[in-house]
């Protein structure tokens, strides 16, 4: 990995990738260990779902965060990944009944967790490439609109191509291949991939197109190709998330790759901060917890064990309100443009008492720092 990333963009970046990854992977693994020791039943399920949600969010963040183009369509790639996983993992005898139109080589396939995810990545990337070719020639707004089209069309296909998807009756009998540790491992791999991507040449070029397409092109960046490559890479991550999720959830229907999921994933990355990997993870964590608490209110009429009146649709409404508040008061998200480790370094720098005379940071850097704070807030 280190050799690969060095080739991608030099030593300084390799260090950033390692530090940036550790800042997220370590807390995630600690959380997994704690949950492994303490959690059972619903809490454990919540925790596994959280790790899978991280992968979903990172796929979306990879595209929308780097290019600045909102994608409503990444949830469709989650769906594609889920169907691919179903084709490859459902026991052969059941498969003949579920998907009569499945080609022979798929009908005979019976793969495990990792190969199914890899296959989903390949299929997702190929589909993203084909539909991305015309999309990448569009302007930003048109591209965003076309992802909306993708969402609706994909949902139409999932719901109506009955011989391949069983339509709205949904798919079942997927073997249970995902537990706490495999979900945590997948989340950690996705985090490392996302951080490495951000610091890669492609990632940097994509961020340049987000900041100023005209100037990036004049600097030699092929905007069309850059966006297409980011689209493909991010769709591959989303497809992997779908394959992972399918092998945990074991059954699913087309309605699970639609508006509710799009809204949830977009809210998470917007709340945490679109531009950063940490933001996607943070947003996923916050919303998972808030959602769970409010679902308790909706379903059991209790909040943290205390009885309250039941209100249905509360979780959705709360998510909408939180997203709106963030968009109004902190549009760049909670973390803004700084990763967790950058916030950490900043806090440490502030706390450290200044030595009398000498080793202060240069006035220019200080001025710039304050100015950047003003610019952000």
């Amino acid at each position, binding site marked *: 990995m280190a050799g690969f990333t060095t080739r991608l963009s030099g030593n300084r970046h390799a260090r950033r990738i390692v530090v940036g990854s550790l800042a997220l992977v370590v807390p995630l693994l600690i959380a997994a260990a704690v949950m492994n020791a303490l959690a059972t039943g619903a809490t454990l399920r919540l925790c596994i779902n959280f790790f899978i949600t991280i992968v979903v969010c990172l796929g979306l963040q990879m595209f929308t965060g780097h290019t600045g183009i909102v994608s409503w369509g990444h949830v469709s790639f989650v769906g594609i990944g889920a169907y691919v996983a179903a084709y490859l993992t459902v026991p052969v005898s059941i498969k003949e009944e579920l998907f009569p139109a499945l080609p022979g080589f798929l009908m005979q396939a019976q793969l495990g967790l990792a190969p199914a995810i890899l296959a989903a990545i390949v299929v997702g990337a190929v589909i993203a490439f084909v539909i991305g070719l015309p999309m990448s020639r569009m302007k930003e707004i048109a591209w965003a609109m076309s992802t909306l089209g993708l969402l609706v069309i994909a949902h139409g296909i999932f719901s109506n191509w009955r011989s391949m998807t069983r339509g709205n009756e949904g798919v079942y009998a997927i073997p249970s291949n995902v537990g706490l540790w495999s979900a945590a491992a997948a989340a950690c791999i996705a985090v490392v991939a996302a951080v490495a991507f951000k610091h890669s040449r492609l990632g940097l*070029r994509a961020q*340049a197109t987000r900041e100023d397409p005209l100037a990036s092109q004049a*600097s*030699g960046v092929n*905007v069309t190709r850059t966006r297409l490559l980011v689209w493909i890479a991010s769709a591959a991550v989303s497809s992997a998330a779908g394959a992972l999720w399918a092998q945990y959830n074991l059954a699913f229907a087309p309605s699970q790759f639609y508006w509710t999921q799009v809204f949830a994933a977009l809210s998470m990355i917007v709340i945490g901060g679109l531009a950063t990997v940490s933001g996607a993870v943070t947003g996923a964590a916050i919303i998972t917890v808030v959602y769970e608490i409010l679902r308790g209110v909706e379903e059991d009429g209790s909040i943290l064990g205390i009885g309250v009146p039941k209100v249905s649709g509360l979780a959705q409404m709360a998510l909408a309100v939180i997203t709106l508040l963030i968009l109004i008061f902190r549009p760049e998200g909670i973390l803004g443009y700084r990763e967790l480790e950058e916030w950490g370094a900043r806090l440490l720098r502030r706390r450290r008492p200044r030595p009398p005379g000498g080793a202060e940071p240069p006035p*220019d850097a200080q001025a*710039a720092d304050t*100015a*950047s704070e003003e610019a952000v807030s």
Partner: protein
Amino acid sequence: MTAATNGGAGRLRAEDIVKTFRGLKALRGVTLEVAHGEIVGLIGPNGSGKTTMLNVISGVLAPTSGRIYVGEHDATKDKSDRVAHLGVSRTFQNIKLFGHLSVRQNIEVGAISGRHKAADPDAEVADVVRRFGLEEVAEAPARSLPYGDQRRVEIARALAARPDYLLLDEPAAGMNEQESDKLLHIIRGVRDEYGCGVLIVDHDLHLIMNLCERIYVLAEGQTLAEGTPQEVRHNQQVIDVFLGSAVIDEM
């Protein structure tokens, strides 16, 4: 001046450029040339087509007619990223930095996206950062820098691509005399150290007259005059266009 009909090595040449915006003729057949290592000025009243000319040369706008040669290569139909790969970098009138990226990252985009795709971009970037005295602000977001520094970062980003030709669109806009003098030294240093040709558009006649070896004067989309600062200064047509002696005295 050569009357060659194509570019030739070591030369950036725009030939008989016409640019029409919905019937409005912004450029009516402008020809100009920049040789390697030469600093050339492009001046003219507002609306004379200077920035349009720069946009056409850099591939941001396609000319309605005319040809552009970068060296031997016909770049008339090339988009701006291709033109950058041919060795033509530019800055913008209203600074266009990658605001949320650090100063270092801004420069790195130039280093990894230009035609050289530097084998060791880190070293290349560090070198440019040092030359432009940006070490202390290298990790700060570009948008947080004061105006003058942002101008420097934009020039640094353009140079990180190691261009043969550098196009500067009003680099001194909004600068006071002191800053503009500093800029003059930077641009001269760039030419001396990188050996690239520089085409500079500006309203700051003091800067242009002191910096440029050759000057083109545009008026209403046409070349009004061309020559050394001395020649241009005493050209009666130029004096008329710039409305009298006040401005010329300043020159």
